[in-house]
């Protein structure tokens, strides 16, 4: 099958590339754009490690055909910091000890960002719900929720 050219924005920059119509957004981000911060933990939509933001919503890039990204705005973990300044979530994750092995961290950060962009002052229960699709085997989630709440205070 021939490749199809698509255009979309990734982390504020235009990207135009030829993609395999069967390719997932995850594969295109990691292989064609070299954005390896987005992780493949299961390739089946079960773990959340591949979470990115598409047009403001947290999505699973392993279940999203790359074609579907055409004309959309994608944010990956590499696009979180701005002009060398870390996003408040990134700072809070470091300060609160919300990072251990780090494999779930990019997806966790993006689920949290999608939440805070919609709801800058969430309750802990709302945070718990927002990250419920992101599996973490290291932290028990408490410090992750602490970090999102801290970032929310600072943003708000």
């Amino acid at each position, binding site marked *: 099958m021939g490749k199809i050219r698509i255009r979309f924005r990734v982390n504020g920059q235009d990207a135009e590339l030829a993609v395999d119509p069967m390719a997932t957004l995850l594969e295109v981000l*990691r292989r064609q754009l070299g*954005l*390896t*911060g*987005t*992780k*493949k*933990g*299961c*390739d*089946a939509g*079960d*773990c959340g*490690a591949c979470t990115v933001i598409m047009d403001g919503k947290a999505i699973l890039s392993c279940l999203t055909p790359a074609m579907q990204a055409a004309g959309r705005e994608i944010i*990956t*973990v*590499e696009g*979180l*910091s701005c002009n060398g300044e*870390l996003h408040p979530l*990134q700072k809070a*994750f*470091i*300060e609160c*000890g919300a*990072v*251990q*092995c*780090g*494999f*779930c*961290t*990019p997806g966790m*950060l993006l689920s949290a960002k999608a939440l805070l962009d919609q709801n800058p002052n969430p309750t*802990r*229960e709302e945070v*718990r*719900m927002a*990250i*419920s*699709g*992101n*599996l*973490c*085997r*290291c*932290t*028990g*989630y*408490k*410090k*992750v*929720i602490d970090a999102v709440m801290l970032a929310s205070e600072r943003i708000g």
Partner: protein
Amino acid sequence: MHVVGKRIERVDALKKVMGKALFADDLRFEGMLYAKVLRSPVSYAKIKKVDASLAKELKGVRAVLTARDIPGENRIGILGDPFRDQPVLADEKVRYIGDPIAIVAADSAKIAEEALNLIKVEYGELRPVFDPVEAMRQDAPRVHEKGNLASLRKIRRGDVKEGFARSDVIIEGTYKTPFQEHAYLEPEAGIGKVDENGDITVWACTQFPSNVKKEVAKVLGLSLSKVRVIQTVTGGGFGGKLDISVHCHIALLASKTGKPVKLVYTRPESIMASTKRHPFIVKYKTGATKDGKLLAVEAEIIGDTGAYASYGPAVLTRAAVHATGPYSVPNVKVDAYAVYTNNSICGAMRGFGVTQVAIAHEAQMDKLAERLGMDPIEIRLNNALDVGSRTATGQLLSHSVGIKETLQQAHKAASEWKQDISRTVPTGRRGIGVGAMWYGIGNTGHPNPASVFLDLQDDGSITVLSACAEIGQGLDTVLAQIAAEELGTNIKDVKVISGDTGVAPECRGSSASGQTYIAGNALRQAAIQARETLFQQVAADLKVKPEDLYLDNQAICVSGDSERRISVVEAIKRCRSLGILTLGSGWSNPDTTPLEPETGQGNPYVTYSFATHLAQVEVDAETGESRILKLAAFNDVGKAINPIGVEAQLEGGLSMGLGQALMEELLIEKGAIKTPTLAQYLIPTSLDMPEDMSVSIVEEAEPSGPFGAKGVGEPASIPTTPAILSAIYDAVGARVTKLPATSERVFQALRRRPY
């Protein structure tokens, strides 16, 4: 202390939040090939013929290797002889579903996958055995020629017959635990590359770089100096990344093709090919006086180690040693069997056999307390180990025994919890449960040394080199803290390069909750060595004795003369001007004794960590569904080098312990895994964890540990599971003895209740 004991941000957190941490699958080399593994679809068979000719002809395929193509030894096994029983590629037989038979390297993963379908294997199926009890019978099919009993560990202390004869109460129980999956978020991955000299470098996730180096060298028939293992950022391990996974396969393919070769497991492949937690059957008998004093414990433990030994005999040994729980028992008899079957391979998983026996000994203590009408925590306190106690292996505990302190703190918390008896659903019933444990730090009576190099440089900054593995537990940060503390520098001036066998000598794996204790001690020695070099020169210059010098705020000072001081940087410059380098190297191996084969007597560990956990649950008395409302951990870690890291380990441990209690069961039927994805093998999500989760660090300093530290990784999860099971019983009177306590099992147990 200026760094140790402080809440320090992880040294690897920045790269991880930026998405810059490079895991093995994130690496890419020019001209890289992609590998796939052909695995056995049958659980037990002779391999009659492997025909790879069609696969080799497929365009884009660069190599297809089978057992015949292995230049060195076609056997691996993390315990070494006599347990090196696992083929890298199956030669005569396959022994479980997933046993690798052939490996392919191709221009793309897709082509490699296609090639697998073209390899023809003729199997001569053999009668398999899946039940470890059946496998122990004389007439059972033999998984290995030497028989199905991989090991038997015996512990004999006192006289159990007499102990039971003198007992007023005898409690018996049988407990069954399932296969469990580590479910680290990062599936196994790695890249192998060969250079012009034929030297191999393997970049891969692992918990044990030095073991990978040794195994790759043996399998490829190379000297150890020709193999370098660079551990990539590792996305969790929990014991499952101690054994060999991708490593030998990529090294073989890289060596054959001369090109870099990458292999990344899919999630189902990771679940199929990695080791599992041993399912245990524990038959347990406890004898006590009417005052609740333990007199005798007898336990028979059968662990299914699957097709190959992996860590099996060590897991069963540790289970046997810890079978009494953290209690003083004068008469003990334990038999622990590691048994081969045609199931998936079982090996190390956080808790290493203690997780399983703790479920049994804690249920026994609860039953005993109930029988005698005693408070469950008080009965534990009355029997808890203390300084001066002897363990079941006859070891005299002379220091750092924090079990009573953890029990007392838990007791206080539980009495406060008891006042809260509200419920969220009308059929909800609340209960509180307790779980206690002990855990020996480091390998059980076997050598497991760690080593470190240290360079204190011109500007006062420090580079630490080691082959020890950071797997997410926070080791690099702890090592940086220890170096900064010993040399009076800022932690920002310490760089830890870990997990690289090319820059540092052998190091034990990150396992047995021992890396802070053992690698920390090694680093301390290295730092002290560098400091002594510095002090000798300063002492000569100032015309004082080296022992009169001390470090304070990055300066070397003379005791009793606060005016005379020289900054560390000045002192280094002075040394350098004379051509003296301030270097250090250190290695450490815990001072233990092997267990006597017939009685299991000996000092298997230098020190033990202790813990008590509490759980409050609400069980729906109609459906059997349990909801965890509160969890609390009280862990004696000796000394928390980095309290924020210890808390993080404890909170993660609570979640793993909760998963084990309520949901985690890897279903294997006739050797086939029925739950090969994370949609089927469920681990706790954020919604499963209670908002009310507290962790308390108890510090009973260990004199032989770095700054008094012991360990925390496994003690973080072991007591949670029995605490939850105990809380379910407290709530509705249903004792679940076959794990996990799913709604169905609690419901069944409710129906079996006597009232």
